[in-house]
């Protein structure tokens, strides 16, 4: 079974993002970029399925600016076999990403697509569900466990009240939650090997997709800042403050 893993290049999760002074977006110039953490988990899951002999090939796909190739290289160093870069400077929103990925899925015919539940930049939590819809496939979202069982996958999902298990027909989409696995670090020899793995580059037009955004960003603003309050000396003082000053208990 071939597995497709979409990997997004995002501002690293440790960076404290700043809103641009003109309110047009957040500062990404000169900021550390990394693979979306949920996508690292997706790559790891695919690699483990390959190590178990269930997957035969892993294709990592990234969509965006030319430097998304670096994110694909990271996936290749973790164990993906080859990459596809869909290069565009158009702002990509989940609907466009899902349409581009559908076109790639139709060409590549994977048995499973494993992707992140959420990109930590746009926080949309949408693309996997949308790709599943466009393909008419089942979806196993927010997965904390995936078992491939012949023509089905049994997926344990993190839901509001705890965990839920569903069975989905393959081919299907799985989106990863934080506790699915712990991604490996790429070893130096594997980073070297990854340089030789192939990355195919294409444009949205090659896939017959118009990637134009449907949402216009009118403005981006800083959220209201919270002021640091007071440090108290004792538990008794804390309880007194909560009762008499804040009046919340």
């Amino acid at each position: 079974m071939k597995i497709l893993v979409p990997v997004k290049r995002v501002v690293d999760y440790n960076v404290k993002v700043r809103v641009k002074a003109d309110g047009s977006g957040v500062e990404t110039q000169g900021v550390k970029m990394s693979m979306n953490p949920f996508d690292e988990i997706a790559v790891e899951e695919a690699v483990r399925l390959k190590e178990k002999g269930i997957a035969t090939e892993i294709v990592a796909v990234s969509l965006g600016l030319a430097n998304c190739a670096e994110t694909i290289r990271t996936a290749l160093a973790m164990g993906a076999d080859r990459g596809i870069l869909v290069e565009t400077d158009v702002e990509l929103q989940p609907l466009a990403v899902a349409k581009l990925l559908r076109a790639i899925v139709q060409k590549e015919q994977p048995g499973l697509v494993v992707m992140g539940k959420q990109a930590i930049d746009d926080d949309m939590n949408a693309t996997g569900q949308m790709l599943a819809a466009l393909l008419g496939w089942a979806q196993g979202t927010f997965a904390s466990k995936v078992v491939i069982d012949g023509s089905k996958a049994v997926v344990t999902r993190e839901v509001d009240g705890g965990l839920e298990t569903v069975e989905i027909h393959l081919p299907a989409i799985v989106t990863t939650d934080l506790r699915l696995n712990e991604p490996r670090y790429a070893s130096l020899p594997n980073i070297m090997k990854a340089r030789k793995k192939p990355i195919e580059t294409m444009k949205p037009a090659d896939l017959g997709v118009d990637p134009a955004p449907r949402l216009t960003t009118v403005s981006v603003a800083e959220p209201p800042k919270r002021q640091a309050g007071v440090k108290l000396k004792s538990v008794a003082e804390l309880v007194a403050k909560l009762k008499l000053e804040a009046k919340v208990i």
Partner: protein
Amino acid sequence: MTVLVLLDHEGSVIKQPSRSAVAAAMKLGEVHALVAGTNPEAAAAAAAIAGVAKVIVAGDVAYDHAMAEPLAALLVALAPGYTHLLAGSTAIGKNVMPRAAALLDVQPISDVAAVIDADTFIRPIYAGNALATVRSSDAIKVITVRAASFDPAPSEGGHAPIEAAAAVAIPSLSRFVSAELSKSERPELTAARVVISGGRGMQNGENFKLLDPIADLLGAAVGASRAAVDAGFVPNDYQVGQTGKIVAPDLYVAIGISGAIQHLAGMKDSKVIVAINKDEEAPIFQVADYGLVADLFTALPELADELARP
């Protein structure tokens, strides 16, 4: 404009995030509520919500576990009558709404925190470090609503008529197997007036019991940081944060939590924040109204005693 809101329901209860979605929908137009599944009590509960003008019931067992494939197909069948489709940003809303949106060729708008007008919404991005105002050019808007940002519509006061939805073909792609839900007598995290959360500083699951007497006295829900969940101290549904639950209670108490941005994203809209941490440099103190630099193992028993005092 008429708005359809997909409700999360359990027995005779319409979940609070769904009532927040109703509140958001009321800013857009006439509100119809969709109850899917065979729950016999849910339709009447939906009809009683103040602000709901009509309840639509799709009483097929195929919807009983809120699986995304059948529910999205149902929403798509109902969509032509509506300008907006809404749901709370719950596990169900997040799973179903983007799927419905794609089938309608629409870009969904996730986790809306404010409604500006029929096309324009504010939503947090980058773990709440920025607020984006976005305008949709789609003919129909598909939206999940950040529950913490809208006071829920009251569960009493409405008298909406109840109507049955026409049957829709059920896709057979997926099957519900089982649920392993954590049982608790405490209020739900996203609905509680007080939340007390523990972090890695709690050291193990057993120590979370130190929070119990305090939660009992305050009627609080118990939450946790990701670190505490990953370490197995508590189940996954306790997680507060960017990728867990978003809460905005009157009082949030963070115990042994450092205050990473991903955690702050889930609680920084709380009215009053208290932090207890032994490290006075912990970033949680930058957002806390009241901070106590202390070892939690001495502070928690003291806090329980102090609160128990008449």
